[in-house]
């Protein structure tokens, strides 16, 4: 099922690529078009490609972006006469995700796949609704979508790229290296220092890799389990959950979490690329300290 959704994304990117290549006003028509074409191929035909070729295409995407060749074209001003009906397509998307999730919960199907199919279905329904409500020609819808896609640019790539980095890091044993480093700094009987090291490692690793998913297993294996839970016998449910949540403080302050901190900068057309992170920094710090104190209380109390 997911394969069909990937093909859909591939087709859409192909459509965007063709529109970009045909747009004479676009400042970087050819490389930007090529970028979306390659990404479209990776989505639509990815499962048919040998992995090394897919890897090579990924490197090509990064090169195009690295040389600053992926750009957004000019955006025409929006039409002033909107109406309440325009919210219908927007609300169809979360409604469809909700419906698909509930259906999966009820039938006992895989929930995360259900949510993704709901997202795809909702996007199609929303597109049809937008088409019907505005009466826009298909060409215009394509150009509008393409321009929004262009403002995101290569940022769309980053989450997948970071996932690849995580795999390579696991192969290279970066986790063991980090855990070994902590052991050399903190002696094993200092509870408070160990909790601090646990939280710093979790937040730091989440900041470096852009999410808690890659960081948690490393920290749980390297610090939480051998240095805190085994010797002091605290509640593993409490400390595991709080350690996981501390990772979010790291995610809130890093450009690596592109889909949360940089994609919105592009989507909202903010002037400073750090606008969202800067706002989140004090809250992330306060949350970090609050959870750290709670964990110290739980392990020493």
């Amino acid at each position, binding site marked *: 099922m997911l394969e069909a959704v990937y093909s859909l994304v591939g087709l859409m990117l192909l459509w965007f690529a063709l529109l970009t290549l045909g747009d004479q006003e676009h400042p970087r028509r050819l490389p930007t078009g090529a970028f979306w074409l390659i990404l479209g191929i990776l989505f639509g035909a990815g499962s048919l490609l040998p992995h090394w070729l897919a890897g090579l295409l990924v490197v090509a995407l990064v090169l195009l972006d690295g040389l600053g060749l992926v750009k957004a074209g000019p955006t025409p001003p929006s039409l002033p006469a909107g109406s309440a009906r325009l919210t219908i397509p927007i609300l169809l998307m979360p409604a469809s995700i909700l419906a698909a999730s509930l259906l999966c919960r009820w039938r006992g199907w895989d*929930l995360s796949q259900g949510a993704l199919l709901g997202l795809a279905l909702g996007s199609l329904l929303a597109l049809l609704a937008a088409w019907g409500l505005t009466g826009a020609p298909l060409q215009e819808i394509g150009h509008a979508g393409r321009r929004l896609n262009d403002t995101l640019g290569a940022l769309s790539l980053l989450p997948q790229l970071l996932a690849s980095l995580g795999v390579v890091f696991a192969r290279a044993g970066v986790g063991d290296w980090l855990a070994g480093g902590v052991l050399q700094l903190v002696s094993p009987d200092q509870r408070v220092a160990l909790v601090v090291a646990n939280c710093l490692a979790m937040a730091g690793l989440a900041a470096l890799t852009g999410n*808690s998913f890659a960081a948690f297993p490393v920290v749980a294996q390297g610090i939480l389990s051998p240095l805190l839970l085994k010797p002091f016998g605290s509640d593993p449910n409490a400390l595991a959950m709080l350690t996981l*949540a501390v990772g979010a403080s790291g995610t809130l302050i890093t450009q690596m979490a592109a889909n949360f901190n940089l994609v919105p900068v592009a989507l909202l057309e903010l002037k400073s690329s750090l606008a*969202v992170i800067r706002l989140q920094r004090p809250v992330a710090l306060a949350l970090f300290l609050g959870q750290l104190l709670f964990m110290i209380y739980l392990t020493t109390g």
Partner: protein
Amino acid sequence: MPKENNVQGWAVLLLLAGLLLRLRTTVVVLLSAGVAGLGCGLDGRKLLEILGQAFLENRTLTLFLLTLPAVATVEHYGLKEWIGRWIHHRGWHRPAQLLLGYQFFRVVCGTLGLRLNGHPNLVRPLLAPMVCAETPEEQHETMKAAAAAAENYGNFYGQNLSPVGGGVLMAFATMKGLGYEMSLWRMVAFATFPCALALLFGALQFRHLSRRHDA
């Protein structure tokens, strides 16, 4: 640190330097993967294979691109302008309450196990225009960033409240693998603490930001 392991250190250092110097993130990530991979003895072809496979296996992360045409079309036909008029008409000039309300809504979504992809689907087309409608122009940059932050605060800490949330399940499986007796519901119970804390700090920040615009 042992000498033969220096490769990992260089790879991490490269990431850190790239972050601090704000170099182009895609390039930094690829270079770091290259250093770590080649340094630990993979050959170039094997590294490309790992990169390509991981990239393809994580295509779900980028599915939200599908939502863009619908969002862009209704925006082109004046959705933002309509929201601005609607908020103005209702005389709703309390952006702090809107932001906190949205964060709370995302916590509820998280508790229900819903993953919404809020930034493209809700923040850009709905929340950002709503909080900007009654704030002066020079505050828009901050208010839009606050809308994105509300999404992140609600999403990050809310998803831990669902026993089938991705992060909770991952942590549950990891700890079980390490030999612990785990309970999903007990884990979720402890997730309420950071979530409540996030709502509190979010409320304080949003109030502070909208106070600044009143003054």
